[in-house]
């Protein structure tokens, strides 16, 4: 359970090799200035060459039928390479919403084209206010029509379909539901939001009397939202630990080559011990992220606690890695031409998406107390 299989290691290797070839930092820097924000050619290669469009999606919907563990490997490599693409928003988040809540008709309608990369979907979640920790959603759908503005919608600029989170205006219990809206609806307007992380696009999407379709059966999706958020937190955590690892490696490499006062700075305890502490923090965060992914794959009931552990640990490790990496690089690490800041910005944007560490730690205590009581 705590070791990857040979197949899993091969998957990691092939994704890494693909991204080394197709997701160079220089290409990423070009994409940062382009409107789509990702490379359609290399993105299509994920489906055509690598066949990872639906790692964890059942074969009947065109996926590879593997588990969340395999998905976590793919995501870690994408995080490591800082690969800009709508994979996370469409093939993971939106696909998960469909998998978790959709009816079999909806899955059959949407998952194959998402899995093949033909259509891009994204989840629209955050409202304009009440977003200091996680989305506190008050908007609702009435008569299959939705009006309201969502922000921090990942890859909104390229989405073919939005999966909107909103309450059911007719339901007295009024839980959170997911609703499908087509991006070509005339009531939808998408504006790009400026993100500190130019390698991942976000948008503000306004819906005005937009016709939406409920995801899932009326009485079936209770608790689906919480599970969706937990799955998303884990996916993000898996991506984040890959980025943290890249930062550590690049810092060690820089330190090994940088000479000051007639000696390598990598021989100085201030630098060495910082790297040792960072390695420990990243290894712990990796374990948290791996364990949570395994728990999803195994439908382990402890999963919600593990999800909080994974996201909180990844947040702290990635941010620490980002800050330390700049510090170890010194002045050069603060320049635009050095690559460190690209990962720093990804770390910061990931840290606040789907819950800060403080949020997850507080949540963990409710969840772990239940576990321990078992």
């Amino acid at each position, binding site marked *: 359970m705590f070791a990857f299989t040979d197949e899993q290691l091969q998957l990691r290797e092939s994704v890494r090799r693909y991204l080394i070839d197709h997701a160079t930092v220089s290409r990423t820097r070009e994409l940062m200035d382009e409107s789509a924000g990702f490379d359609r050619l290399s993105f299509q290669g994920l489906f055509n060459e690598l066949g990872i469009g639906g790692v964890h999606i059942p074969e009947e919907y065109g996926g590879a039928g593997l588990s969340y563990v395999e998905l976590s490997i793919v995501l870690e490599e994408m995080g490591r390479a800082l690969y800009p693409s709508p994979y996370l928003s469409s093939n993971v988040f939106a696909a998960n919403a469909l998998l978790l809540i959709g009816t079999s008709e909806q899955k059959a309608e949407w998952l194959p084209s998402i899995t093949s990369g033909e259509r891009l979907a994204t989840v629209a979640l955050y409202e304009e206010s009440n977003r200091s920790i996680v989305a506190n959603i008050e908007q609702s759908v009435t008569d299959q029509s939705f009006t309201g503005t969502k922000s921090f919608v990942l890859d909104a600029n390229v989405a073919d379909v939005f999966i909107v989170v909103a309450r059911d205006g007719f339901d007295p219990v009024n839980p959170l539901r997911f609703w499908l809206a087509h991006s070509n609806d005339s009531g939808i307007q998408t504006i790009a939001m400026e993100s500190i992380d130019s390698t991942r696009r976000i948008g503000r999407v306004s819906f005005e009397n937009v016709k939406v379709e409920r995801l899932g059966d009326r009485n079936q999706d209770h608790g689906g939202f919480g599970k969706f958020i937990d799955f998303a937190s884990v996916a993000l955590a898996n991506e984040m630990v890959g980025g943290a690892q890249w930062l550590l490696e690049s810092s060690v490499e820089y330190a090994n080559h940088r000479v000051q006062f007639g000696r390598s700075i990598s021989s*100085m305890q201030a630098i060495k011990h910082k790297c*040792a502490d960072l390695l420990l923090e990243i290894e712990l965060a990796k374990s948290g992220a791996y364990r949570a992914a395994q728990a999803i794959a195994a439908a382990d009931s402890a999963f919600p606690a593990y999800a909080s552990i994974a996201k909180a640990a990844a947040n702290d490790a990635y941010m620490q890695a980002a800050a330390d990496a700049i510090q170890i690089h010194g002045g050069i690490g603060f320049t635009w031409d050095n690559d460190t800041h690209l990962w720093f910005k990804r770390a910061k944007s990931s840290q606040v998406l789907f819950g800060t560490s403080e949020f997850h730690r507080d949540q*963990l205590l409710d969840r772990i107390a239940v576990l321990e009581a078992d």
Partner: protein
Amino acid sequence: MEWTEASVRNELRSFLEANWDPNSDLLDWRNKLIDAGWGMPSWPERWYGRDMPQSLLSVVAEEFASVGAVTVARTGIRLLAAETLLAHGNDAQRERYLRKILTGEETWCQLFSEPGSGSDLAGSTTRADLVGDHWIINGQKVWTTSAHHADFGLLLARHDWDIPKHQGLSYFILNFHQAGVEVHPLRQMNGHASFNQVFFNDAKVPRNDQIGSSGDGWQIAMTTLMHERRNAGNIFVEARRRGDFEGLIYEHEAEETKVVLAPYTWYPLRAGRVDIVLPRASDTGAINNPAARQEIAKLMIMSRCAEWTALRARAAQQQGQPQGPEGSLGKLAGSNIARQAAKVHTLISGVDAMACGNDSPESGIIAEILLSVPAISIAGGTDEIQRNIISERVLGMQKEPRMDTGPFKDVRKN
């Protein structure tokens, strides 16, 4: 012969069926095990073993456990002595010492650390001077667990001061039953005295009790330390493995275990007793205090992730990757966890955290935790040393400039 799981089970079951009796004498039984090679089955047949691969030892353990059979003496330092003798001793030494280690008749301790060489073990200044047929030992060792009831010690001492420090060390078997050896307990800030100081004043070691040759000391000590690290987590395993069986032999074994483990009773406190945090937080209501929740959660996250990291390392080993310096990562994690646990225990206890003794939280356990945790980041290699190891051996970073490479007599010392 080639061992298989089935052949191990078969043979061992017949042996146990024929010989095991919970009311036999502990010494008799252990001698039987030793003669049959079932005490240390992975050892060579020549030396009380059966040349069995490590991977089958868990099968042996299962069979012993299923009938509740007691095994050879394994707790404390004794197995480090045995493994060192197996690796570097000569046959006469193995003949003289191995059996009585396994029977438990003779106990051992480790004489490496000195007041002036803690992090820098190779900086030992205990002298070994060869006079006639004896090495004459002068100097002082410290942090010696169980020296007060040890029969023998694994001694690292310097025979040559004119060559670089790692080269001038030799390794000896020191007999405690002599006039030149004095043992004083060393009291700690938490009130325990788990360690001793050992003073040598013209203590004698017969030439035959030198292990290896002069100058091999450092290399042999590394063998001992490797086994120490490998077994560090196992000290308590034996003790916990059974207890549902009745018989005279268990009482004798329990007495032995109690003596050997006495110095280690506070180790779980030193590690912060993470296990009692949540129950205490519930009992005191601290679990509803948002600031306390944050700190408790930090602790739980560290602690769980460290456990999983250890499991990942073990799984990698089982897949055939060699054990590496990642033990240092675990040790460093342990320090962080213990410190955070102390912080959380304080926060949960409030003003009660200053009380100790029976009339205090958890009958003094909390106070003992708070006064024991500072040891964890020092004992067995400080956090600073672990960070050096991690950065150099895992991350491949460079060593600091060395100031101790010349003849040892010229190296700056305390």
